[in-house]
């Protein structure tokens, strides 16, 4: 668990960082909080020759909440997401999820950009971004483009981002007032990734579900957006039958690995339980 040697860079502007990436393409990696990358380097599963630390880039570090849109800079830490009251008021699932990531020490350093950028199926925020239908803003030598979170993940650690791009921020439409949301995650212990986890966001009007979104973590090699499961809820009274239909539809798209957390059969079963509980909690919170 001793990493290989590397050069360390600490730019203070986005342009400088992109310039550094361009001049070392293939040999350089962005370093944000380091809590995914450094363990990979210690295992020598990542062996960058250059690390470009983006923590000093001021422009990447803000949370801005507009009338209709929320913008979160790439280096905003999980701790910042937890501590922002304004964010918790309009989009509480970000705080709820952040509190279920690792432990306070890791959350003080781990960033939302690092969490969503690298395509680790164990990370929790990518599912939340599926749920929210977020856009990722990517900036490279040829300028800026946005990619839908729902189109970003290709396979474990394979994403739509090209090597010379930096993910600068995450944007999504502010959730409607009165929505209910919940993230249910089961893990073996603090600091573990999900055995299964599910995020649910829904709106209820006159006892009937008017909109719904469901996403899941660590149940396939990419985060899962469970469109059919959500559709099973829309128009229903969120009764047992509708929930059962949503659970079945969610389980149907999982394809978990069998690992120390349990065999695939168990994790698929558990996915359904997490979805069910998240629906019930979100329902209770709606209105």
């Amino acid at each position, binding site marked *: 668990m*001793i990493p290989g*040697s590397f050069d360390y860079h600490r730019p203070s502007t986005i342009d400088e960082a992109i310039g550094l990436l361009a001049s070392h393409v293939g040999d350089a990696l962005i370093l944000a909080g380091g809590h995914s990358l450094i363990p990979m380097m210690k295992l020598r599963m990542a062996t960058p020759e250059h690390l470009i630390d983006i923590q000093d880039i001021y422009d990447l570090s803000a949370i801005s909440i507009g009338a209709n849109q929320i913008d979160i800079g790439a280096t905003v830490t999980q701790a910042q997401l937890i501590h922002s009251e304004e964010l918790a008021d309009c989009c509480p699932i970000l705080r709820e999820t952040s509190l279920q990531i690792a432990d306070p020490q890791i959350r003080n350093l781990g960033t939302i950009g690092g969490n969503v950028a690298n395509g680790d199926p164990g990370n929790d925020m990518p599912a939340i971004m599926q749920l929210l239908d977020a856009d990722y803003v990517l900036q490279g030598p040829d300028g800026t483009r946005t990619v839908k979170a729902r189109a970003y993940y290709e396979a474990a650690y394979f994403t739509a981002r090209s090597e010379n791009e930096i993910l600068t921020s995450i944007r999504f439409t502010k959730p409607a007032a009165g929505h209910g949301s919940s993230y249910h995650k*089961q893990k*073996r*212990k603090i600091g573990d990734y999900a055995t299964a986890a599910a995020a649910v966001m829904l709106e209820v009007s006159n006892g009937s579900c008017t909109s719904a979104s469901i996403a899941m973590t660590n149940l396939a090699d990419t985060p899962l957006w469970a469109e059919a499961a959500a559709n099973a809820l829309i128009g229903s009274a969120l009764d047992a039958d509708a929930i059962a239909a949503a659970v079945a539809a969610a389980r149907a798209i999982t394809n978990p690995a069998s690992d120390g957390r*349990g065999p695939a059969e*168990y*994790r698929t079963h*558990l996915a359904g339980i997490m979805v069910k509980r998240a629906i019930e909690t979100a329902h209770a919170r709606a209105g």
Partner: protein
Amino acid sequence: MNVQSPPTDKQRIEKLQGLGSSRKRVEDARFTQGKGNYVDDIKLPGMLFGDFVRSPYGHARIKSINKDAALAMPGVVAVLTAEDLKPLNLHYMPTLAGDVQAVLADEKVLFQAQEVAFVVAKDRYIAADACELVEVEYEELPALVDAFKAMDADAPLLREDIKDKMEGAHGARAHYNHIFHWDCGDEEGANKALADADVTVEEMITYQRVHPCPLETCGCVASMDKINGKLTLWGTFQAPHAVRTVASLITNIPEHKIRVVSPDIGGGFGNKVGVYPGYICSAVASIVTGVPIKWVEDRMENLSATAFARDYHMTGKLAATKDGVITGLHCHVLADHGAFDACADPTKFPAGFFNICTGSYDIPVAYCGVDGVYTNKAPGGVAYRCSFRVTEAAYMIERMVDILARKLDMDPAELRMKNFIKKEQFPYTSALGWEYDSGDYHTALEKGMESVSYKALRAEQVDNRAAFERGETRKLMGIGVAFFTEIVGAGPVKNCDILGLGMFDSCEIRIHPTGSAIARLGTISQGQGHATTFAQILATEIGIPAEDITLEEGDTDTAPYGLGTYGSRSTPVAGAATAMAGRKIRAKAQMIAAYLLEVHEGDLEWDIDRFQVKGNPEAHKTMKEIAFASYNQAIPGLEPGLEAVSYYDPPNMTYPFGAYICVVDIDVDTGVTDIRSFYALDDCGTRINPMIIEGQVHGGLTEALAIAMGQEISYDEIGNIKGGSLMDFYLPTAVETPMWTTDFTTTPSPHHPIGAKGVGESPNVGGVPAFSNAVHDAFAHKGLTHTQMPHDHWRVWKTAQKLGLTD
């Protein structure tokens, strides 16, 4: 004017902070400030660093090793392989169990992560880089992973080095993968009891392979001084004196030319008892290069290559009458020792003290047999926070008694009460030959049941089960009872030795002229707080405040010889030596006091911190005054100074015991187990420092929780280790750890000078069956008899699923 009255007796006793005082740990000042001094803190001029090239395979032939590219790398000083060690006859080393272990793989690798080459470089990073450049060509061989297949006729041959040596260290070997057969007791009698019994139960109970996983991994710094020919070895050694002797025997360096030092140790739990290839390679590299060499393993190396614990497959059979009197026990163990037999047990006990497996019960006839086998797994089999193989034995009997209770439809606590050895039967000789020193089991379990309101818990469980049937809850409540008897304090030299070294221990005390003192012991603390508690024993014995007594351990050049710290032996053995050395000091002090007070020795009596004249307490000399006198008065017939040494050979082991009760709520849909409460009553005889005891119990219970609920080192079918990092190996944090409720009774050991029995490991021994019994109890009404640990989420869910409780 302020007239000071003389201190009261109570004040004088309090000032000593002796036996029974919850004195704060003196070690903590440095640990909490990050000022400990661990092996990795040692930095010597010119020091080089070692790192291992390890096997990626579980079983393979080494076809070639090419070191050229590694040696060509700037900063690389040497690359050692078995070929380099052969001329020194150091490519194999003796293990503590009478086997040999490859220091660097000789022609074959036998487990994944086995040491193949040792790279020495100018810094730790270069060493790691260079390891990647050592090219090893392997030819993969079929791996033997399932211990039950080890003795099959067509099983792969693992140990080519000893294939013709059919007489092992513990008798005949029945197969090339067989290590030993050891048994004890009356097999015929046990079988007859089973044949004649009203009721019998049988179960194969596996205690999975786990790992002690101390926070500090193993490591050493070896430094050969070419001028005076002295080798100094600093390392994570739980038994520094034994390491020195072994090092001398295998290197032929005279013992006085070797100094072994254990600095601060960050937890051991048995993992740091053995001798590892890293120590030998570092010493050889230092001798060859003439500069100090540091080797410190990383976490994954620690989990995958240094000593594991357990891996016992135990088939137990109990015989009983229909009203629940146990009439016999038969047990057979298949012991998976990995690729080399590197267990750390007293020589005559290849299965440790597993024959304590009759537990706390008066079982008239018993038999246990153990067969050890080789597999393609890391060597070890150490006592992970327990005495030798005692937690295995306790787990087996405590599960079996619960299984019997189900079959008899009796309450498991009641069945235990019925079969306990009675208070008046002590000293009690068990069917398997141990002489239990003292105990009062009924009182302990009764106190426990009362404290947790056991009856009310059982009533609540009845309601819970009914509510579950009605579909009102998806949680099931389980109540786990365990009652354990430990056997610690190895041990009497007449039957306990390691590599021929008797398992006595020692203490040497020197009183300074002004009345403070230094004491040195043959043990070594790894977090147990010896510097605190042993000073307390002395404070009470010699009347010098604990804070005025320095405790030193771990340096073989200064400390008296002892066998080290593991198996809860420090208090029973070195603690006894400390008390005995203190009594020698006091005996001489009495002579000095008699001289000073001009009375006969017999006219004096000891009073807290002084000798006083019987019937005239105003005439007295404090230990402080006596100490000074010993340095400045010419006392006829007495040598100056005040020093003593004691080597203590215990007459018997000590037998701590305890009653543990755990309540768990299980979510059948997720398999999540929520430990609602845990009550631990420990009887460790005389209690030296209640706060340290409580801390030891908290730590041991947390490790028991880890083992019962999550820890496992397993291998896939080709010998790849699974769970070899903290990602998967379950180390609970404060969040997963429930509130512990501790309690005690006090039944002193009749043969120990202060009546103390040792406690550090009891909570692991009693904790594991308590957790496991609680999980089983939750499903007992659904017909569950036994399911293997760990009781992690998915396995618990699987149990619920098999019982038809999930959707």
